[in-house]
């Protein structure tokens, strides 16, 4: 959309608008625009296409440059434990179903833990995904203590020789202190049963979320040391630009993106495709 344009103020303004409308946020947008403006060619004769390419490069650099290297090679421990958390309705349960199917298709033995014992039909929902993916689900009755289900899940993973253990938790707003404490307790239970676990703690973030996504990431990082992000619902019109600030400020990488409601709709995150899609 920025093809064959002059490197002028009007085009720069339109670039800035695209960033704001992609939820990149004011601060990150200002930073990126400053970087872009410093690269303006002396004679100002270049086409907008180059301007767009330079902006996209700056964004990919901002995304890649801030990622801290993963501490462990994936699946280098057994069971490899992944804990999923995030605010209400973002797509945690669905994402677990999708990832379970992927690992099962890779020949891994997968087990799911229905750690949401609060919301109506939460374990029934995960159970249905378990059937769809062809994997077992550890669950308790509604209202059970989530830590107890997680404990059972850890025991079952060991006794059943599981390769990958995926743990679902109830949606919770990061502002609810007692619910954050519940998550910390769940992590302690996991670590006690297997030192080093959870090997991945994934924050699931909805691409339609605005600047509150940054606050969610801050609080969850601080309280549960998230290792990665899953950005869901990128099949909509929202661009998920808030992850640029998240990666820049907190260094937490996006691992996967959700692009639909079916079992195959989970892809690994690629910074270049993400930035390209942002401008489409």
């Amino acid at each position, binding site marked *: 959309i920025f093809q064959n344009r002059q490197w002028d103020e009007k085009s720069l303004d339109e670039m800035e*608008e695209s960033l*704001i*409308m*992609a*939820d990149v*946020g*004011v601060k990150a947008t200002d930073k990126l625009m400053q970087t872009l403006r410093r690269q303006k060619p002396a004679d100002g004769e270049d086409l907008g296409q180059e301007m767009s390419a330079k902006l996209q490069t700056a964004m990919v650099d901002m995304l890649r440059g801030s990622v801290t290297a993963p501490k462990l090679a994936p699946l280098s421990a057994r069971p490899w434990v992944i804990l999923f958390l995030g*605010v*209400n*309705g*973002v*797509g945690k349960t669905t994402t677990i179903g999708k990832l379970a199917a992927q690992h099962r298709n890779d020949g891994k033995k997968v087990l799911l833990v229905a750690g949401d014992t*609060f*919301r*109506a*039909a939460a374990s*029934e*929902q995960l*159970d*249905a*995904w378990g059937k*769809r993916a062809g994997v077992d689900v550890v669950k308790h009755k509604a209202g059970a203590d989530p830590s107890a289900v997680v404990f059972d899940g850890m025991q079952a993973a060991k006794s059943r020789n599981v390769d990958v253990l995926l743990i679902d938790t109830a*949606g919770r*707003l*990061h*502002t609810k202190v007692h619910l954050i404490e519940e998550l910390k307790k769940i992590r302690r239970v996991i670590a006690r049963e297997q030192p080093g676990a959870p090997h991945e703690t994934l924050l699931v973030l*909805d691409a*339609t*979320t*605005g*600047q*509150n*996504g940054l*606050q969610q990431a801050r609080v969850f990082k601080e309280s549960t040391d998230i290792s990665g992000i899953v950005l869901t*619902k990128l*099949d*909509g*019109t*929202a*661009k998920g630009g*808030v992850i640029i600030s998240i990666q820049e400020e907190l260094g937490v990488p996006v691992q996967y993106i959700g692009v639909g*409601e079916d079992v195959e709709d989970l892809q690994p995150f690629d910074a270049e495709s993400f930035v390209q899609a942002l401008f489409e």
Partner: protein
Amino acid sequence: SLTDKLELTFKRLRGQGKITESNIDDALRDVRLGLLEADVHLKVVRSFLDAVKAKAMGKEVLLSLTPEQQFIGVVRDELVELLGGDYQELDLKTAPPVVIMLVGLQGSGKTTTLAKLARYLKNEKKRTPYLVPADIYRPAAIEQLKILAKELDLPVYDSNPETSPVTICRQALDEAKKKFCDVLLIDTAGRLHIDEELMAELSAIKAAVNPHQILFVADSMTGQDAVNQALGFDGKLGVSGVILTKLDGDSRGGAALSIRQMVGKPILFSGVGEKLDAFEPFYPDRLASRILG
């Protein structure tokens, strides 16, 4: 917060002598920044600033002893007005059963909100709601609404996921009439406004049961996409009201302004928690305070 920023700006402006039209622009810049950070859509921010500027250039602000109070007052009044002024009642004035349909994007809180609305109508408005689970796609969606209905001791249609949502709604309407229930509450599957097939399904349900209210359920932490969503649902289906959810979080809620501006229909209720009693009328002045910080 935006209020803090404005107070600082005016302090600095007063230090430079009297407040003039040109330095009101400094204050407007603060407002622009504050609104964008609060997730108000860029285009909505622009028209909002124009409205504020027109009012702020008046003598009340420029000649006031406390111009920042006047200016903040103008911003607040404009926010409240844009959000609908005072709280508004849900219109139920039609022959029973009044059909109400909840629509919106995936995960916005429709199923939970439908149960909350049922509880509100039963307790506060002495109505007899009948709940209809018309989401045949999401695993255990029908079960979810059935569990909530049981919790509220309210009748719920026993939807079969093999039947189409249109058929489910038609049959449920007949059931509700047989039971003399005066409100029919329909839960629909979450969907994208760009999904032609699923948006057509909503139009088909609308044609089949003629809802008196089609309420758009929106997550209050939605960012710039709120405008696309609102235009999509109102454009393709027609929305008669809005419900904002998850206001118990700390998102600033700017999406409320964007949606209200685009749809032009009242925001009727606020979801303020996960429990079924976490439901209240939407108050424009409370959201204005939230945005001003």
